[in-house]
Every structure is written in C-alpha cells, then in structure tokens.
C-alpha cells in the first residue's frame, strides 16, 4: 500500500505527459483521481497507524551500501501524507478552473503529480538516503513548477533562484545525513530515531547539525535564506498554494520535526534554530506589511509562520513540539485557502496590486467572506484554528527553557510579530475588499465558477470547525502524530478553546488591539507607498544572492578560464603530458620502481631491421608534422605498417589484420581532413621568428616528449618481462571452445564472454559517429581553404581552354585505368569482408575487421567516381546500418531471455552448408553481424560526412563572395 501511495503519483505523472496539450480537462481528471486515490489509501491506513506501530515496507535495493527502498509510515508521516494528498486534491480542483486553455495544462498536471509523489516520498521515506533523493526531487520539480510559465523572465529567475538555494542546501543536508549514517552505522530511520544520545554526544554533532540545518533552513525559507520564496511567487497560483502551504517549504519543517527527538535539546540547536526562527518570524511579518503584491504579502507571511514553527521546535520542550506540529497543519489550511483566494482575485480582476484593488466586496461577497475568515485565522482571532496554535506558542514562549537572552526575548518578539500579523491580515482584507469601488481594472470582477470556490469552502470550514471544537475534530489525529514523534515523552496538553484569563490570552489581546491600531496609523502610507519595507528595501537578500552568483559563475569562472583554459591544442597537450609524466614518476619513485635490466639476446636480424625502419618513420613523422603534413602522414603510414609487422612477429595475427585495416582507413580519413586545414604562413627558418623564448619552449617540449616516451618504454618493458601471474586469460583460453564454441579466443571474448562490454563499446562508437556527423554538419571551413584546390583549377582551366573538351574530362582521363580497377574491386573486397566475418569465430577476423574492410570498399567507390556519381547509383544509408546493427546486437542479447538464460548468453552450433562446408554458427555470429553493420555504418558515416564538405564548399564559396560584395557596397 505504501509503495502504491508513493508510486501512483509518478505513474500518473508519466501518463499525464502523454495526454495531448489540448486535453487539459482529461489531465485534470487524471490528477484528481490520483490525488483522491492517495487520500483514500492514507485514510484507509489510519486504523493501522493509530495503534501506534509504524507501518513499514522493505525492499532490498543496494543492501551492501545500506540503501534500501524502505517506506515507513507513523502517525506524523501519516498526518503529513494526508495533508499532502488532501490539499493536493483541492488544488487540482482549483487548478482545473484556474489554468487557461492556452497553457500546456497536461504538463502542469504531470509536474504537479510528480511533485506530489516526491513530497510523499520525503514524508514516507524510512531510509535517510532515500529521503535525500526524494528531497532533491522536490527541489528539481519545484524548479520546473515555478518556472512553468517559462516565457516569463521573472518566473525563470525565481525558479533558478529557488533551485540554487534549495539545491545547495539539499546538498549540504545530504552530506549531513550521510554523516548521521556514519555515526549511527545505519541509514534506517528507525535505528536513527532510537540513537539520539549517540548522535548528540558524538564529536561530529555540530558539523552534522549545521549541515542538516543548512538543508532545512533553505528549504523552509528561513532567515537568511528566505529571499527565494517571494520570488517563487511568479509561479501559477495553484502551484504557490500547494508549494508554500502544505508541501515544499513544509518539507524543511517536516525534517526538523522528524529529527527533533535525536538532535534537539542542545545549546547549539537552541541558538542556531532559535535565532534563525525568531529573526524570520519578526522580519517576515514586518516585511509582509509593506508588500503591495497580494501574493508577496502571503509569501512573507508564510516565511513568518514557518519562523514561528522553527522557534517552537528550537525550544526543545515536548509541549512546544506539539504546538509546532499543530501549527504546521493549521498554517497549511488557512494559507492554502488564502493563496487560492488571491488567485481568484488575480484571475477575476487581472491584477494583484493592492494599490489598485479596492471595494471588491460588492462584486464577490462569497470570496470576500471566505478570505476574511481565513485571514482572521492567520491573524490568530479566537474561535479559529490559528488562534489555538498561537496560544500554545505564546504559552511556550513565556516558559523559560534556557537561561539566556534569546529565551528572555522570545515572548516579546512573539507578541510584536503577532501584532504585525494582525496588521497585514487586516491590510490584506481591507485594501482588497473594502473602500470605494475599484477604478480602471483590466477586467470587470465577478464571482468565480462555483467549483473554483469549493476547495476554499472546504478549507475555511475546517479552519472554523477545528477552531471551535478542536478536541473532537483534529484531536485524535494530532495525538497520533505527536505520539509518533515524541514517544513516551508525550506531554499532557489540552486543546480547549478557553483556558481562562491567563498571560497568553493577554498577549493575544495586546497583539490584536495594537495590530489594529498600527494598521490605522499606517493606512495612509500604505495605500500609496512603493513596494517593500522602509529601511530594509535596499538590503535585499536577492541582490546579495545575485552579486554572489555573478562573482562565482561569471567573474571567477572567467578568470579561471583565462588562466587555465586555452583554445589551442598545443598547451593542452603539454599540460596533459607533463601532468601524466609527473604523476607517474612520483608514484613509481615512491613505490621504489626499478626498471628491468635490458638484455640483448637472440635477436632476429630481420626483426631488428624492421624496428629500425619503424623508429625512423616515427621520429620522421614527429619531426615533419608541423611543416610538411603530407610527408609526416606518409611516414606515419610506414610506422603503422611496422607496428602491424610487429604484431605478426609476436604472434598476434588477428590484431595485425585489424590494425592494418584501421591503418588504411585512418590514412584516408586524415587525408580528407588535410584538405580543410589552412596552409601555414610562417617560414620556420625565418631568423626573426626564432627568438630565444621560442627555442626554449621547443627545447622544453622536446624534453617532455623524450622523457615521457622513455618512461613509457621502461614501464612497458618492465611489465612485459615480468613473470605472468595467474590471470584471467588462462580461464578464457580453456573455456573459449567448450563454452563459447569458437577457437579464436579474442573473438569469443568479444562476442561472448565480454559481450556486454562489446555492446557498450559499439553503442559508444555509434554515439561518436553521430557526434562527428552532427559537428560536421555545422562545419564552416576557414576562408582561405574554401576555394577549389589549385590542381583542380589548373585542370579545369585546361578543359575550358580547349573547345573540344568538357569540364571534368582531364580527371576522367587520368583515372581511366585506376577507376576501372577500383570499381571492380568492390565485389572482391566484399568477398574479403564476408571471409573475415564468417571465419571470425574460429580464426582471425570478426565483425569489426569485416566492417572496416567493407567500408574501404565504399570509400574506393567514392574516390573513383566522386560523391555525386556514387550517390546516384548506390543507396548509402550509414545511419540506418548503424541503427540496424545496434538493434540486431541488442536483440541477440535479448533473445537468450526467451530461452530462460541471462542476457547475451550464446549458443554454439555448427551448420553444414552446401558449398562452404561446415561453418560455425553460434548465436554469437548474429551479435557479430550487429557489430559488423554498426562498424560499417559508423566508418562510412564519418568518411562521407567529411567527403560531403567538398560538395558543400562551392555553396560556401558563393556565400563568401556575396558577403564580400555586400561589404564592398
């Protein structure tokens, strides 16, 4: 049941995404029924919960790391879950009428449901890590919800600010929770809750406390992190009503209460939480008075009320915790209804500015009455639920818990803040509903549709009922919740409305009277004043936040980029090689590395000669690379060839074959790219350019290269001359035929034993090819390499000069003989590829080699006839080949599931074919077919994408000419 409770909203969210944009009502029905389902489930669970034992659901997830999918519901979690589901349902009904048809409504409900799921997850998590995951989810989804109207810059900024603040806090909290897990030795909530003394006495307690409080205070918008909440008001009103009354900001309070039994009671707790709470309580209420935006007023009032709850929790007395839980519920009811009322006013009049609104009572009496009751509850007027918890708060504020100045100050601050609350509540009602009729409103106001009011009816009704007969209505539920948090420490408390003439009542009366007085005094000022409170207007948290952001993400990032970043390849390579060299050298020297003695014995003279050739080639290539690219490429080809010969000599024929194929393709690839490299202008022998610093730089680079090379050689030599320990290779050698059905061990490893790795690798290859393709689509060559190469111009000019010749005749004549050979090679190379492919399982070859060989056949066609000629005659769809390859490989792997084996289990069999004789036919060959198709597709795709640049170049030339003409004109 618990699992359904958490998963149903997410499932609903996925379903809601699939609903087309116009079908907003369908999405609303879906969201409504999901919320109702959650509500019914949690209501049904009450009988189990009220008995006092928490409900648990356990599923192993990563038990080795202590991370289990544990859901746990006790009275407190039940209360929160019901609140989330109930207010969720009401907000869905409200939003159905609030959202306009032009908005993408299904997206709204999808996000809304996902948020509900995340919130339920936070509430019901029985594992700290799980809790942190859901916590982050609420941050992310609230970001999306606040930024729902993403065309609006305010919404975007508000969303980003909310995410930055709560996300940073969430990260701190995550570390804190992990530390708790470390201290307690388990992430399980039940274990954590029962080891309060261990945590409080641990030396890391202060660190944990600060980290967790960072998460909690940012989430609950407590001072000094309160500034994001008013900016989050750019969200659609249903979102505000949900996020800022019952869910997002309450998540912080929830965690604070949840961890209250294990963390509260110490001096650190009292000071940090108390100070933050008191400041927030006072400043929030003070700021709220001076807001001109309806939702802004409600936002600051929310901040202030959250401060109140935080103060209560800071006191560390069980009675205060009861009050905190009680006020959490009360605040959710009246604040949700007020937000909805503000939304209705905005919806029906077109403005939320209190200076423009007035006298709306005559247009919408029902809304006005409901809003009045709700704001009276916010102000703490007797016979409403807000009054009850406020009285409890006053009673606790008077009590002395700790002997310090903060505790002494609390009752005074509480009274003043309460007075402010009365003032802003009156202001909210008075400026909107009373006074002369409004002038020049964007719309003529009238009562909203009946169903839009229904949620407010319900909420206000519950405010009243709870306020009048608390013990009969909310009493039992509150008791269950309180008991689950406090356990045996549950104090005796009374929910009566009338406690007699006592100090808290006097404080309430003072607050009420003074609040009304303050409003009367301030009224003239407030009707005309600008937004924001006096004195504090300039000291805005948002400004500081933005200043910090600019410094961090712009100035610092820029300066780091300036110092450490470079657009040139050379310095990057230099740093990379140098760092690798130093790291390897330090590690090896510290470990006492001794290179093996180099022994010259039984040298094969031919082999030595080949190696000499290879070394000269490599050094020559490096030497020529900068100023004679073509020569360097030729020499590189020689070095590659020697490498292949070496593979053969050291008995790795399959490696040699593959390497040869790769060598050929690479040469063509680099040649294709060489066309687009701009020519070098500098003369290397120009004495003026050879300054001392240049010489020094080159010397340093040479030294780095030589050292890195020698080091690498020493390491490889040492590794290779060591006695081979018992490794996995002997296992593969033994099992290749008996289990993989092939005698080519390398191929069997690739397609069978390590098939999953290969699947991953070909997927990566696929991604790389697509990236290269996408990048080349946007490739704009340098202007100097745009024009047709000189050779072609000369030949074309020759053709043009002779009247009996057409353009392109020269090249056709030059290539007359070679092109015939190249075209006829196509089937031959295809045969070679098939040969490599089929014998791959037993002898050198395989899908990869075959794919590359086949791609060479295609390249030859392109070279012989040119791009246009080939593409008129052959259908070349490398993208499709890649897709088919990946699908075939995956399907082969999935196929083994059909027979009840794990993913990618292969089955080996030999088949007799008429001409070919007996050939191995393991299922691995299907997998290899996928590899073949993918490699072929990827190689051809990259080469063709490069080749197509030549076709596009003439167009680019024309563009460049046009630009030049424009500039001249």
């Amino acid at each position: 049941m618990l699992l359904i409770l958490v998963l149903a909203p997410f499932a609903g969210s996925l379903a809601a995404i699939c609903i087309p944009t116009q079908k907003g009502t369908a999405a609303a029905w879906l969201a409504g029924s999901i919320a109702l389902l959650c509500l019914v489930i949690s209501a049904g669970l009450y009988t189990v919960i009220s008995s006092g034992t928490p409900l648990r659901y356990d599923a192993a997830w990563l038990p080795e790391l202590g991370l289990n999918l544990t859901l746990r519901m006790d009275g407190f979690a039940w209360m929160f879950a019901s609140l989330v589901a109930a207010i969720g349902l009401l907000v869905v009904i409200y939003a159905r009428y609030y959202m306009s048809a032009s908005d993408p409504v299904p997206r709204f409900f999808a996000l809304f449901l996902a948020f509900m799921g995340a919130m339920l997850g936070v509430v019901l998590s029985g594992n700290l890590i799980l809790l942190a995951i859901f916590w982050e989810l609420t941050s992310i989804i609230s970001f999306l919800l606040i930024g729902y109207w993403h065309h609006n810059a305010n919404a975007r900024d508000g969303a980003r600010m909310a995410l930055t603040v709560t996300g940073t806090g969430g990260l701190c909290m995550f570390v804190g929770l992990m530390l708790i897990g470390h201290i307690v030795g388990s992430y399980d909530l039940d274990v954590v809750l029962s080891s309060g003394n261990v945590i409080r006495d641990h030396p890391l307690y202060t660190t944990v406390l600060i980290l967790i409080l960072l998460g909690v205070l940012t989430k609950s918008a407590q001072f000094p992190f309160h500034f994001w909440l008013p900016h989050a008001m750019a969200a659609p009103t249903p979102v505000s009503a949900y996020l800022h009354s019952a869910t997002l900001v309450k998540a912080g309070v929830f965690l604070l209460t949840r961890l209250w039994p294990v963390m509260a009671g110490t001096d650190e707790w009292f000071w940090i939480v108390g100070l933050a709470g008191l400041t927030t309580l006072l400043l929030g209420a003070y700021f709220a008075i001076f807001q001109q935006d309806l939702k802004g007023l409600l936002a600051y009032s929310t901040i202030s009320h959250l401060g109140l709850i935080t103060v209560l929790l800071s006191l560390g007395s069980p009675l205060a915790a009861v009050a905190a839980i009680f006020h959490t519920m009360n605040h959710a009811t009246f604040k949700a209804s007020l937000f909805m009322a503000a939304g209705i006013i905005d919806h029906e009049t077109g403005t939320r500015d209190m200076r423009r609104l007035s006298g709306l009572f005559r247009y919408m009496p029902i809304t006005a009455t409901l809003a009045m009751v709700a704001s009276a509850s916010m102000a703490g007027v007797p016979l409403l639920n807000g009054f009850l918890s406020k009285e409890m708060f006053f009673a606790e504020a008077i009590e002395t818990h700790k002997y310090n100045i903060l505790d002494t100050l609390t009752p005074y601050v509480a009274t003043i803040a309460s007075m402010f609350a009365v003032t802003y509540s009156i202001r909210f009602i008075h400026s909107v509903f009373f006074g002369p009729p409004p002038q020049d409103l964007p719309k003529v106001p009238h009562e909203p549709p009946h169903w839009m009011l229904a949620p407010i009816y319900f909420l206000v009704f519950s405010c009243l009922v709870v306020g009048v007969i608390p013990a009969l209505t909310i009493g039992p539920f509150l008791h269950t919740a309180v008991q689950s948090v406090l356990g045996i420490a549950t104090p005796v408390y009374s929910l009566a409305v009338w406690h007699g003439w006592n100090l808290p009542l006097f404080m309430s009366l003072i607050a009420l009277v003074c609040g009304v007085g303050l409003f009367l005094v301030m009224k003239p000022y407030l009707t005309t004043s600008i937004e924001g409170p006096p004195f504090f207007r300039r000291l805005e948290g948002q400004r500081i936040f933005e200043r910090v952001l600019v410094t961090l993400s712009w100035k610092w990032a820029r300066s780091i980029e300036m110092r450490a970043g470079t657009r040139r390849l050379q310095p990057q390579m230099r740093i990379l090689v140098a760092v690798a060299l130093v790291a390897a050298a330090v590690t090896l020297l510290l470990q006492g590395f001794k290179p093996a003695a180099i022994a010259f014995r039984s040298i094969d003279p031919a082999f030595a000669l080949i190696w000499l050739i290879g070394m000269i080639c490599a050094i020559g290539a490096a030497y020529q690379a900068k100023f004679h690219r073509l020569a360097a490429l030729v020499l590189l080809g020689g070095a590659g060839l020697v490498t292949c010969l070496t593979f053969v000599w050291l008995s790795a024929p399959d490696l040699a074959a593959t390497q040869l194929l790769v060598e050929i393709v690479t040469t063509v690839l680099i040649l294709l790219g060489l066309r687009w490299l701009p020519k070098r202008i500098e003369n290397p022998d120009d004495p003026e350019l050879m300054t001392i610093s240049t010489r020094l730089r080159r010397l340093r680079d040479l030294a780095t290269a030589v050292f890195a090379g020698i080091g690498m050689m020493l390491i490889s030599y040492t590794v290779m001359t060591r006695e081979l320990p018992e490794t996995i290779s002997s296992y593969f050698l033994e099992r290749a035929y008996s289990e993989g059905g092939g005698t080519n061990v390398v191929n069997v490893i690739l397609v069978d034993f390590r098939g999953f790795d290969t699947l991953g690798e070909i997927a990566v290859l696929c991604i790389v090819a697509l990236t290269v393709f996408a990048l080349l689509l946007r490739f704009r060559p340098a202007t100097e390499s745009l024009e047709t190469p000189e050779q072609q111009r000369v030949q074309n000019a020759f053709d043009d000069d002779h009247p009996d010749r057409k353009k392109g005749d020269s090249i056709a004549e030059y290539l007359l003989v070679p092109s015939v050979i190249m075209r006829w090679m196509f089937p031959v190379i295809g045969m070679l590829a098939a040969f490599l492919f089929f014998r791959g399982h037993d002898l050198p070859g395989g899908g990869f080699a075959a794919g590359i060989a086949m791609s060479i056949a295609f390249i030859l066609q392109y070279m012989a006839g040119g791009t246009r000629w080939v593409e008129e005659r052959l259908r070349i769809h490398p993208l499709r080949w890649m897709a088919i390859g990946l699908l075939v490989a995956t399907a082969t792997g999935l196929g083994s599931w059909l027979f009840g084996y794990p993913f990618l289990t292969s089955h080996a069999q030999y088949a007799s074919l008429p001409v070919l004789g007996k050939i191995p036919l393991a299922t691995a060959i299907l997998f290899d077919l996928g590899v073949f198709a993918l490699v072929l597709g990827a190689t051809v795709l990259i080469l063709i994408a490069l080749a197509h640049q030549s076709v596009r170049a003439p167009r680019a030339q024309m563009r460049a000419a046009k630009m030049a003409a424009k500039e001249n004109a």
Partner: protein
Amino acid sequence: MSELFIIWSILASQILLSLAMGCALFRMVRGPRAQDRILGLDALYINAMLLLLTFGIRTANTIYFEAALIIALLGFVSSIAFAKFLMRGEVIE
C-alpha cells in the same frame, strides 16, 4: 640438409626484404618530391607483404597469410588516396 637450406634462405630473404624496406624508407624520408615519398610507402607495403609471406613459411603456419592478403588487396588504397590528393587537392570530390 634441405631443412637447413630453407632456414638459411628464409633468413637471407628476410634480411634482404628488410633492406629493401630500408631503401623505400630512404625515399620516404628524403623525397625530394611528394610523389617519391608516396611511391616509397607503396614499395614499403609490398615488401612488408612479402616479408609476411616469408614469416608464414618460416613458422609453417598459414594464419599469418591473412595479413598478407589484406595488404595485397587493400594496401593500394592509401597509395591511391595520396595520389588523388596530390592530383586533385582532395581525396573525394
């Protein structure tokens, strides 16, 4: 006796082929023209193929012929690509 003869002749042929590769290398390094370098590379490929064949004969194992086959069939591709590059300024038009 014939066995010894074969061993020595293979060794001699391998050394000679290596020397031939060395000659090709000289053209690749010195040039002087780009065409010389490319022809040098082509010669290097052919010699390497022959060397692989002698290696196969020496070890009496046909498995090494595969690489020789690939050079024989496809070794010319890079030479062609180079030639096309020199002649037209780009490999694929």
